[in-house]
C-alpha cells in the first residue's frame, strides 16, 4: 500500500500587498488540492506566473507576508507523525527540515555562501540538524559526494571556483545530505545548458531511486518532466487544471490548455506547422470569471465564462477541470 506523504486541501494562498496607498490581492494559488504519495516524483508544470512557485513555497511551509495562506492546509505525514506545513514553529522547522523535508532551489548561481568553503557550508547545514562536530560533518560530506560520483575536491573550493553545473550538483547534494524523505525542487535545471542539465537530472533521479524518496518537481519544461516525473499536475492561473500520470498527460491530455501546451512543443520527429497558444496568461489580481482559460480557449462555450468548472475524475488517477469533459464523465459513469 502506498501512503500519502503530502496532502494539500482546498489551498488558497494570496499575496496581499499595500503599496503607495493601493491594496492588491494576487490569487497565486486558488483552491488547489493535491495528494502526493511516498516514493513518487510529482511534477508541477505551467507557464510563468501560473502560481507554481507559490504553491511550492506553501507546500514547503516557507513563506512570509505578503504571501498569506487564506484557506486550506498542507499536511505532512511521516511514519505516524502529522504536521501542518503552513503552521510550523521554529522548533518544527529545525526538526523537520533537511531531516525529512528538503528543498532544491532554482538553478541559481547564488545559493551557496560566497565566502565559505563548500565543506563549511555543508557543516553548517548538517550540524544544525544533527549536532555533529566539524570532522564528523566533513566525513559525512565526503562519503556522500563520493556516493553521488561528485569530485571530493570540491569540498575545499569556494563557490566561485565551480562551474554552474557543478554548483547546482553540489547544491543538490547539500539539500539531500541527510536523506530526506521528501524533496521539493524548484526549477532545478533552468538556466543550465542542455548537456549540464542532463547531468543534473540524472543526479536527481539517482538520489530519488536510491532512497525511494518523494520528489515534488517544478519546471516549465515538459521535457524534464517526461524524464523524471511519475505524475504531472498542470497549473493554469493559480488553478490545477489537470493531473494524471506522465504518460497520460503527454500522450492523451484532456484539458484544452494541456493539449495546447503539449502540441506547441517542437519535436525532432516532424517539422509540420505547430501553433502557439493565442493570447496571454491572465493577471492574477483580476482573473477571468468562470474557467480562467476561457478567454484563450477556442473550444469555450457560454458556460465557461460564468461557471467555474469542477474537478472531474476522468479515470482512476486522471483529473481535469473542464466543462467540456462533463459529458465524457457522465458517459463513462452511465
Amino acid at each position, binding site marked *: 500500500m502506498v501512503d500519502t506523504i503530502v496532502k494539500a486541501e482546498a489551498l488558497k494562498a494570496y499575496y496581499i500587498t499595500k503599496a503607495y496607498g493601493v491594496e492588491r490581492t494576487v490569487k497565486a494559488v486558488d483552491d488547489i488540492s493535491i495528494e502526493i504519495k511516498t516514493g513518487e516524483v510529482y511534477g508541477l508544470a505551467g*507557464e*510563468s506566473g501560473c502560481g507554481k512557485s507559490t504553491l511550492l513555497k506553501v507546500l514547503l511551509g516557507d513563506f512570509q507576508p505578503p504571501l498569506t495562506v487564506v484557506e486550506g492546509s498542507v499536511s505532512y505525514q511521516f511514519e505516524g507523525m502529522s504536521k501542518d506545513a503552513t503552521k510550523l514553529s521554529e522548533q518544527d522547522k529545525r526538526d523537520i527540515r533537511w531531516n525529512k523535508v528538503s528543498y532544491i532551489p532554482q538553478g541559481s548561481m547564488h545559493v551557496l555562501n560566497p565566502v565559505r568553503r563548500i565543506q563549511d557550508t555543508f557543516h553548517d547545514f548538517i550540524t544544525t540538524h544533527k549536532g555533529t562536530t566539524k570532522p564528523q560533518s566533513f566525513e559525512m560530506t565526503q562519503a556522500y559526494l563520493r556516493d553521488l560520483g561528485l569530485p571530493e575536491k570540491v569540498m575545499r573550493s569556494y563557490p566561485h571556483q565551480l*562551474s554552474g*553545473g*557543478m554548483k547546482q550538483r553540489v547544491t543538490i547534494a547539500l539539500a539531500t545530505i541527510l536523506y530526506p524523505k521528501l524533496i521539493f525542487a524548484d526549477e532545478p535545471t533552468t538556466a543550465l*545548458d*542542455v*548537456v*549540464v*542539465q*542532463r*547531468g543534473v*537530472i*540524472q543526479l536527481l*533521479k*539517482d538520489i530519488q531511486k536510491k532512497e525511494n524518496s518523494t520528489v515534488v518537481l517544478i519546471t*516549465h*519544461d*515538459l*521535457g*524534464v*518532466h*517526461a*524524464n523524471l516525473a511519475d505524475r504531472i499536475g498542470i497549473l493554469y492561473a493559480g488553478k490545477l487544471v489537470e493531473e494524471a500520470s*506522465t*504518460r497520460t498527460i*503527454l*500522450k492523451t491530455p484532456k484539458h484544452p490548455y494541456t493539449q*495546447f*501546451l*503539449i502540441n*506547441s*512543443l*517542437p*519535436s*525532432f520527429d516532424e*517539422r509540420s*506547422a*505547430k*501553433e*502557439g*497558444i*493565442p493570447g*496571454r*496568461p491572465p493577471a492574477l489580481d483580476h482573473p477571468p470569471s468562470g474557467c480562467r482559460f476561457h478567454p484563450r480557449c477556442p473550444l469555450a462555450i457560454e458556460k465557461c465564462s460564468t461557471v467555474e468548472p469542477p474537478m472531474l475524475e476522468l479515470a482512476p488517477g486522471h483529473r481535469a477541470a473542464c466543462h467540456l469533459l462533463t459529458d465524457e464523465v457522465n458517459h463513462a459513469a452511465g
Partner: protein
Amino acid sequence: MQQAKNLLEAQDLTKIFEIRKGFSSKAFHAVDKANFSLASNTPEIFSIAGESGSGKSTLAKMILGMESSSLGKLSYKGRLIDSLSNREKRAWFFSEVQPVFQDPFAAFSPLKRIDHYLYETAANYKVVKRSEADDYINAVLNEVGLSLAEVKGRYPNELSGGQAQRVAIARALLTKPSLIVADEPVSMLDASLRMSIVNMFRKLKEENGVTIIYITHDLATAYYSADRIAIMLRGWIVEMGPVEKVLGEPLHPYTQNLKDSIPQADPDKSWDKSANLAEMEADEYTRKGCRFAGRCPAVMDKCRQQEPPNVQHLGRAVKCFLYETTN
C-alpha cells in the same frame, strides 16, 4: 554597385577578446575562423546553435556591426561591415540588417512608451511620409498579429513578453530589411508562446523574403524552423549544413551529445541512464587540438595534438578527424 552574389559572407572570421586583469591579459578566440555565406536570392532561416559561451552571440554582434572583427572578413552585399562608418550604417546598413534581441523588456527603455521606437524607426529611415507613418506602422504591426491601437501609448511593462517581442520584430521590419539577426529571441518566453514567434519567422521568410539568422541554444525550435544550421563549440563552427541532416543524423560527436541531451516531452523517449557524461572543462577555449577532446567519447590521440580539419561529409561541413579519411 554591382549586385553581390552573397547577402552575407564570412571568411575566416575571428574575434579575439583580451581579458585584462590588472596587468596581465589573456587572449581568447570567441569566434575562430568562421566560414559561411548566405545567398542573396534565396531567403532562408539560418540557425546558429550552441551552448552558452560558444561564441554565437559574439558572431551575431559582428554581423550586426556592434563588434568589429579581429581577423578575417565579414561582408554584407559585398561590402565589409567593419569598414562602414556610423553615417553609412545609419544611411544604408541598418535599413538592410536589423536585430531582434533576447529579452524584449530589456530591448526597450522602461521609461519610454514602446511606440516611440516604432515612430523613430519609421521617421529616421524615411520609409514613408510622415503623414502615412501611422498607417504604415499599423500595417507592419498587423503582420506580427498586433495593431497600433493595442500598442500606442503603452510602456513595455504593460505588455506581455510575447507582445513585446512582437513589437520588437515589427520595429525591425519597419525598415524593410533583407536580413534579421535574432539572438535567442524566444528563450525568455514561455513554451506556449515560442511557437508563435518561430512561426512568424517562417512566415516572414516565405511571404516577405527576409533572410533570418536565428541564434538559439534550443535545438528543437531550430530544427522546427531553420533551413540550415551551424553548430558552434567554443568559437568553432563544428558542423554546418541543412538542418534535417545536421540534427536528423548528427555527425560531430558534439552535435550528437547536444542532441541527446535535450529532454523530450515524450515518455517513450526518456533517457536510459547509462549515458556517460564527461565534465565540461573550464578552459576549452585555450586547449590544444580539438576543443571537444576533453569530453569526446570518440577522442583519438591526434585530437589532443592538432586542430581537426574541416571536411565535407554527407552533405555538410564537419570539423572532426573522424570523417577525415572519407574525404
